[in-house]
């Protein structure tokens, strides 16, 4: 392109008017707090005292031996694992099935996407009801068909609460990930399907030989999005279990909230969030790099 800029050298006052508000707002209320967060992570700031004291890397040293942080990481990872598996493979299967529909496709897709437009608080209240021990629909159903001994306190039993969170999150966002796959499925040229049917390929080999390879870009996207989604689990915990029973469902995000907002250990909370953020960026970079290479091979 000859002249890449519509704005000449003298265009800066106009640029200032156009770009200024966005840069100032975003810089002040998103970037500045993120940077301040790093600065606070080197202090013992409680959030209420006037002067935080500089403590160097003490917070990060404490972090290394923090049993509750380790537990939070373990729980977050176990949830993330389920979420990633479900949103990359479960949604993939659902999308392929939806794509095969010859009618009512819009309605069915609309039904599966619907929970995604609801508030997480709505999803939380519905699941709290379904899984309630005394009055919940799941236990009532089990008792009414004579399987009363299978009834569990799904939300308070440490064995089940992890699946409870997973079910709620999976229900809320399955439609979102499925839609991304559906959009990709629509870009597959019909010639490929026609050639496959001429060669007598069944639905299974159409799936493994045509659809799966063509869907790899979206698998990448969904894998990264689902991982980030899982590691950032936070609001869903606040509105359901509040980290309980005990500390069983405290995710890393919830632990930061608990430290910073409920326990006034903001310096330490900042250290935790900074560590998590670095990990998150690293995960995203590694995943994208790995899958790029995979894509070339396929």
């Amino acid at each position, binding site marked *: 392109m000859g002249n890449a800029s519509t704005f000449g050298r003298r265009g800066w006052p106009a640029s200032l008017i156009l770009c200024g508000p966005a840069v100032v707002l975003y810089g002040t209320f998103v970037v500045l707090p*993120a940077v301040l967060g790093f600065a606070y992570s080197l202090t013992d700031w409680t959030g209420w005292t006037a002067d935080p004291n500089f403590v160097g890397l003490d917070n990060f040293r404490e972090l290394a031996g923090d049993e509750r942080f380790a537990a939070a990481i373990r729980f977050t990872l176990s949830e993330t694992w389920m979420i990633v598996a479900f949103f990359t493979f479960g949604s993939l299967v659902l999308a392929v099935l939806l794509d095969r529909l010859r009618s009512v496709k819009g309605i069915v897709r609309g*039904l599966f996407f619907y929970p995604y437009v609801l508030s997480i608080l709505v999803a939380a209240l519905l699941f709290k009801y379904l899984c309630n021990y005394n009055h919940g*629909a799941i236990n009532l159903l089990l008792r009414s068909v004579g399987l009363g001994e299978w009834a569990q306190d799904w939300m308070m039993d440490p064995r089940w609460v992890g699946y409870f969170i997973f079910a709620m999150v999976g229900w809320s966002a399955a439609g979102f990930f499925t839609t991304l796959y559906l959009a990709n499925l629509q870009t597959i040229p019909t010639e490929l399907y026609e050639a496959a049917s001429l060669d007598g390929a069944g639905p299974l080999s159409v799936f493994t030989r045509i659809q799966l390879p063509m869907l790899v870009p979206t698998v990448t996207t969904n894998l990264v999005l689902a991982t980030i989604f899982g590691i950032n689990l936070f609001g869903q915990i606040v509105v359901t279990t509040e980290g309980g029973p005990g500390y069983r469902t405290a995710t890393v995000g919830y632990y930061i909230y608990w430290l910073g907002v409920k326990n006034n250990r903001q310096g330490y909370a900042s250290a935790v*969030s900074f560590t998590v953020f670095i990990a998150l960026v690293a995960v995203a970079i590694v995943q994208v790099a790995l899958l790029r290479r995979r894509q070339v091979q396929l």
Partner: protein
Amino acid sequence: MSQGRIRLRFGWLEGLMLLAGAVFVSPCLLALLNAVKTNPEIIRDPLALPERWTLDNFKFIFTGMKLARPMLNSLLMCAGVILCLVTIAPMAAYSIMRRKMATGRLLRVFFLIGLTVPFQIIMVPLLKLFRMMDIQFTYVALLLHYVSWGLPLCVFIYSAFMATIPRELEEAAAIDGCGQVSTFWRIVFPLLTPCTITVIIFWGLWIWNDFMQAFIVMGPTRGQLVFVQLWKFLNDQYVRNWNHIFAGVVVLSLPVTVLYVIMQRRFVKGLTAGAVK
């Protein structure tokens, strides 16, 4: 279309998937059914039709939970944030996309970083910042937060869309002596309408549904957004009144649901816009 063709297009897979979809949204249907029943009835049998249809639960939403005012608060907040976003973000995107390569790319990266920052990272210092500015726990603080928080995604969506708009129109306007700012508003902004609709749907829905960020930024203030009010009311209760919970869920999801049914395609497109890079 003849009877036979319809039958041909509706096979076992269609029936099965339709059933699966219905089961998938059944928790919502259950909420709708039980919102018109009394609490003892719900506990006895959630699947039974109500013996006596009652609208008392819905009345309670407004008399007991006092959700009318928070609803207005939420609507006003949606309007305010959207107004700010659809003016500030496209201007920035325009300036970024029509700049010389180096500065434009630098600014793009600057905004892109914002897409990766989770709220938990900035939440604590942000509250401190608001306290220093003496606007802690106010609507101004929440508005500033929502707008700033929404900017990276909006700038990203607008820039991607702007790359598809030809420059000739702007150049013609420039030759006619139209300044850059007025060129943007008169020529470019109208062309961005599809994008603006996406942004309105995405952030309108997001802010109406938001609980977490409003809860943290507004703290213990009395005037609240609608989902925070619902949460606070339910949290103060010792007894679980499922009928009230269901009525609240139904009423607060109703506007969203109606809009979703009317314009499903736009919703799906708008809500997945940020993900496809």
